[in-house]
Every structure is written in structure tokens, then in C-alpha cells.
């Protein structure tokens, strides 16, 4: 346990912010989804780090991480299904063009 807690957290934070940047600035819907996955990963790292460093005997951290995995998977599946559906009806995956709610 040489590596200090804050190093892991920093990495997670960096990963998170990079993911956020990706979500906010990419034009392709799938690219956005990829950014989202990055963010989720960062969260996971955070969780696991804290679990390992603070309360390793309680399984809460791991369980939580597992759940995050579950949710991420589900969300990725559904999101991609949506994208494909949108692509079929609108013939585009450029997010900027999907602005029906404009107004």
C-alpha cells in the first residue's frame, strides 16, 4: 500500500474530467456514450479505492462497484439501441442534429 490514496483519486478525477469533456464536446452520439463509460469507470475506481483504503473488511465498496458495472452495462445497451433506432429514423447520429426539443 505504498501508493497514497490521493494518487488514485487524482487519476479517477482526471479520468472523470476527460470523460466529461468527451460527453460535452463530441458530436457523435456513440462518442458521447464512450465518454459516459469513461466517467463510470472513474467512479468505479473511486469506489474501489476508498473501499480498499478505508474499510476493506466491509464489502460495501465492492458490491457497489459490481452494481455500477451492472448499471453501466444496462445503460450502454439501451443507449446503443436508442442510437440505432434514431439512426434508422433520422439517418444521423450527429447529436447536434437531434434537436426536436428545441424551443
Amino acid at each position, binding site marked *: 500500500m505504498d501508493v497514497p490514496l490521493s494518487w488514485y483519486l487524482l487519476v479517477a478525477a482526471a479520468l472523470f474530467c476527460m470523460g*466529461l469533456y468527451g*460527453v*460535452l*464536446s463530441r458530436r457523435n452520439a456513440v462518442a*458521447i456514450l464512450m465518454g459516459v463509460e469513461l466517467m463510470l469507470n472513474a467512479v468505479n475506481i473511486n469506489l474501489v479505492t476508498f473501499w480498499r483504503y478505508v474499510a476493506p473488511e466491509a464489502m460495501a465498496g465492492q458490491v457497489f462497484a459490481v452494481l455500477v458495472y451492472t448499471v453501466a452495462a444496462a445503460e450502454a445497451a439501451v443507449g446503443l439501441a436508442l442510437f440505432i433506432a434514431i439512426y434508422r429514423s433520422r439517418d444521423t447520429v450527429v*447529436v*447536434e442534429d*437531434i*434537436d*426536436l*426539443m*428545441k*424551443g
Partner: protein
Amino acid sequence: MEIRDFFFNLTWLIPLFPLLAFALIVLWANPNRKLSTWLAWMGIGLSWLLGWTIFFLSWGDIHHLTPPEGNHPVPLWTLPTGSSVLKIGFQVDTLTALMLFMVPFVCLMIFIYSKGYMGYGTNQVDSRYSRFFAYISLFACGMLGLIVSDNLLTLFIFWEIMGLCSYLLIGFWYEKSYPDPNRITPKEAGLKAFLTTRVGDVIMLLGLLLLYSQVGSLSFMDVFNHETLDMLAHKMVVLPVFGSVPVATLAALLLFGGAMGKSAQFPLHVWLPDAMEGPTPVSALIHAATMVSAGVYLVARSFPLFVAVHGGAQLAVVAFIGAFTALFASTIAVAQNDIKRVLAYSTISQLGYMIAALGIGAYIAAVFHLINHAFFKALLFLGSGSVIHGVEHGHHEVAHGHHGHEEEAFDANDMMNMGGLLSKMPRTAWTFIIGGGALAGIVPLAGFWSKDEILAHAWHEFQHGHDFGTFWPFFVWLLLTIAAALTAFYTARQICLAFVGRPRTEAAQHAHESPPSMTWPLMLLAFFAVILGLFGTPWANQFHHLIGEAFEATPFDPFVAGLSTVLAVGGMALGWLVYGRQPLAAGQVDPLKRWLGPVHTVLENKYYLDELYKTIFIRPVIWLSHIFSKFDYDWVINRIVNLAGTVTVFVSERWGEFDLVIVDGLVNLVGRSGASFSRLSGVVDLNIVDGIVNRIGDLIKAGGRFLRPLQTGRVQNYLIVAATTVVVLLGWYLVLSVL
């Protein structure tokens, strides 16, 4: 007895029922003929029931109810009049009860008869049918109120009501006019009746005033008791020509003036024959049965006053007038051709009998004759109406059936147009004959008994000369006997001309019997005409028992009875000889004309009395009124009125100008300032208020427009906003925690 008292106390209802009927018909039921008829019948019917109840009940207590001392008072109101008190109310005594036997019943018969006479249910129904029933109801109220009054004032009031009704009813067909200018129209006849009786009424009023001033009350109880009469008899009044006269005499004569007017005694009799212009039920009601007998009733009621002064002039006057009228009228009746006019003069004559009887003290006989006369005279009038009706219908049939052209002037009343109606109208004919017999005084019909009693009394007084001297009774007896003969003669003449022989005109040929509503009353009245007399026979005189116990009963005198019977029968036989044996053919002149010649003309023209009155009284008055009206109009009234009018117009014009300028100016000013103020208000409102409202709206719109771009519809844009916010917040907390 309680029942008696109970019903006596209801006396005030008797005149009220027909009054209610009058009011209801006038105010409400006028359009509905059936209802009007029934209301009138109900009114008089209820009065009849109550009247007969009271009459029969009064038999049980005669002693307490004999006038003038005894009566059952039904006081109503006590009106203070300055220093004294006026007591108004009703009363029941035997005289009233007797009248209550006759009046409502005869009225009821006439009311029933009127339905058919006025043409109910036919297409010749009178246009003012309901009004007729209203009038006769009011009239019935007047007569009934008169006989139940307990004081001279209400008696006078009801007297006047009857006067009014007689005017209304005589002139009922006011639109009727005749081509012959000398023939009086119903309108004129009504006026004549009213004015002539008015003369009598004024005299009567003077009598009332005299009595009131001397006695302080007009109630019967107060005036006709011994003390008062004594006082009145001894108190003297000084008159210009006659010198010192007892108050009682003067009062009696003044009251008699009213009786002369209402009971059509000479010289105030002229209205009654012309009153025949009214419908026949009116003639029956007013001029036979009730109103004219009011005068006789008045004298009977005031009889104590008349006899208060021993051997006074008042009785002489009464007797003379009565007897003279009786003979005078019967002579005229002989020469009349109008069936109703014969009866009219006959009425005048019979009233004379009654007045004369009172003049010689035959109180009971007078009242007896009054009751009898009411029945058979009403019967005769109604019968004549039935005859006229029948002949008129016959005339209608003829005119419309045969030629179909305009109806010629046809006098259905003229007996010369009749004839042979015995077979055509049997019920009318036979009841008429019975009535005529009663009138003529044929035994055992009613008229005989009462007439005979009068004559017997006269003769008796003449023979024995008690209170009334000998001259006047003889005078009365003589004139009345002659009149009786004449009565029989003209009655027979009438019957023969109308019913016997062959019809003289086509109208008479086509005449037919009247409807049951008309013939039933005839039969009922005929029944009474037959039996009523039997109540007054000298051997069991119920009338004497009822009302005249104070007087001596008149004994039966075979001489008088025999003489009057002979005369009656003889008179009728003569009549039949002249007119019945060889009935007149159409167009044949009355034989009497030939025999009497110029006398007949005088008789036919009623002794030219109407013409005399016209010259002496009427023409000068009209001339005077012309002058007055001219003076009034041209000189005085018009000038003054026009001047007043001009001034008023001028003043109002100036005032109007003033008003217009100032008032209008003010109003306009107010209006204009209001308008400008409201304009100002409006400007403020529109600009400021609206401005504010609009600005707010614009602000919001601008805000919206400003914020709208936020909604790009792109998720990433939303996200960046969220992210930015989060970052800011985080930074904030961070900064806070550091500090």
C-alpha cells in the same frame, strides 16, 4: 224565542243579498249571462227565503211586533251628528213582515220571468242582458231595504235608490227612437219618471227635515210614539196662506208629497204611463208590485202621524187625492190601446184606492189591497209582456218568413194588433184572465176581498162617522165604486181585445206561447191571486190579526159587497158585450170612439195633462236655461276662461324658456365636464395603465426571448450548463471552506 230572534237579527241580510248580486254582476260576472242570471236569482232567492222565514216566524209573536209600539229592532250604527245622535238600523214588525211576504216573492217571480223575456238562450238575447239583472237586483235591494228600515233616513235613502233604478230601468233601451216625434222615447221616459218623482222627493225631504228639527231623530220608534205625536200635534207652525198649522199635519202632508210622487197620484202621476217604455218585467216590478207601493207603505208606516191630529186636513187631502186619482185614471184607461198603458192607468187607479183607504182610516184594508194588488198586477204585467213577446215573435216570423224584406214598424203593444190569442197562448191567456178578474174584483178572487173591504169601510165610516167625518168617506166610497165599475169594464175590454176572437194581424196569427221560464211565474202568481184574498175575508181576517189589532175590524156589509159585485160583474159583462161578443175585426174602429166621440179623444190623450205640464213648466224652464247658458258661455264664462287660459299659456311659455336656458345649460355643462373628465381619465388609463401592463408583458416576453436560446434541444448544451453550475458550486464551497 231564540230561533225567532236569531232570524230577526239577520234582517240586515235581506237587502244585502241582492246588493251583493248587483255588485258581483257589475264588477265581475257581466260577460257571463248564465252566471249573472244565477247570481241575481240567488240574491233575490236568499232574500225571499229569509223574508218568508221572518214572516212566518213573526206570526208567533204578533203582540210584541205590532207597530207602532212593538217591533224587533236590529240596530246597526249610531252616528253622532253634532248635538244629537242618528241611530241607523233595521227592524222587524208585523207590517214589515207582511211586506217581506210579498216583496221578495213577487220580485223572485219577476226575476225568473226576466230570463225568458230578455231572451236568454235565443239569438235575440238582449245585448245588455247582464246589466238588466244587475239593475233589478239593485232595485230589489232598494225596496227590501226600504221595508226593513227602522228610520226615515234609511227609508229615504233606499227610496232614492229605487228612484235611480227606475230611471235606469225605464230608460234601459235608451237607443230606441220612434219616427213619431210625439211619442216619448225610453230615454225621455226615464228622465220624466225621475224628475217627476223628484218633485215628490223634495217635498218629502222637507217633511223629513221638519220632523228631524222637531223631534231630533228620524227613527220610527222616536217619531211615531204617543208622546212625540202628541207634541207634534200641539205644536204649531205658521204658514203664509194657511195660518197656524200643527206640525204633525204639515209633516204628514209633506211626507205625503213623496208618496204622491212615488205612488203616481194626481198630479204627479204623469210619469207612470210613459214608464211603460221600459221592459215589461220592469213595469211589473217597479210600477206594479213594489216601487209604487212604497208610497203607500210610507203612508201606512207614518199612519200614526196622519191620525195624530184629530180631523186634520192631512187625511182629507190624502183621501181626496186618492179617490180622485182612482176615478181619474180609470177613465183614461178605458180609452187606451196600448196593453201596458191600460195596466199603467189601472195601477194608478188602484194606488188611488189604497191612498184613499188610508185617508179614511182603512189601514188594514189599504195594506191588504196593497198585497193583493202586488200579486195580480205583477201577474197582469208579466202576462202582457208574454203577449207582447208572442206577438213580436209572430211578427218576426212573418216579416222574415214571407217577404224577407225590411221589418215594418210594428207596435206589438197595440191591442188592436192582437186578438184570438186565447188559443195561441193558453197559459198566458188564462192566467191573465185570472189576474184581470182579481183586478176587477170578482168573487172569490183576491181583489174582491180587499176592494170590498175598502168600500165597506168607507160606507161604514159614512154611516157611523167616527173619526173621519162623513163627507170624505162618502166621497171616497162614491168615487171608488164608480171606478170599480170602470175597472171591470176596461179589464174586460182588454181581455177581449187581446185574447178573444180572431187574430187581427198576421203577427198575432203566428204568435205562440212563451217559454216556461215566463209562464211558470205567471201560474204561481195566479195561484196567489186566487187564494190570497181568502186570508182577508171579513170573517177571518188574518190581516187584521196581523197588523191591525189596534183598529176595529171592518164588519162585512152585504150591501156594499153586493153592489160592488154587481158593478164588477156588470162592468165585465158590458165589456164583453162591446168587445167580446162580436170581436173586433182587423181595422175596425173601437166602438167606444163612436159613442163617446170627442170625450174619447180627451180620454185617449190623458186629459192633455202632459201637454199642460209641458207648457207651464217645461218650456219656460228650457227657455230660461237657454238664456242662462248663453249668458254663461258668451259673456261670462268664455271670457273669463279664455283670459285665464291666455295668461296661463303666456306664463308657462316664459317659464319654459327660462327653464330651457338655465336648466338645460346646467345639465349640458355637467354633461360636458363629465365627458371631458372621462376622456382625461381614459387617456390616463389607456396610456399609463395600459403602458404599465404592456411593459410588463413586454418584459416577460423579452425575458422569454432571452431565455429561449437556452432550450436548444440539444442535450449537450443542457449538460454543459449543468456541469458549469456544478463546477461553480463546487468552487464556491471550496472557497468557503478555505475561508
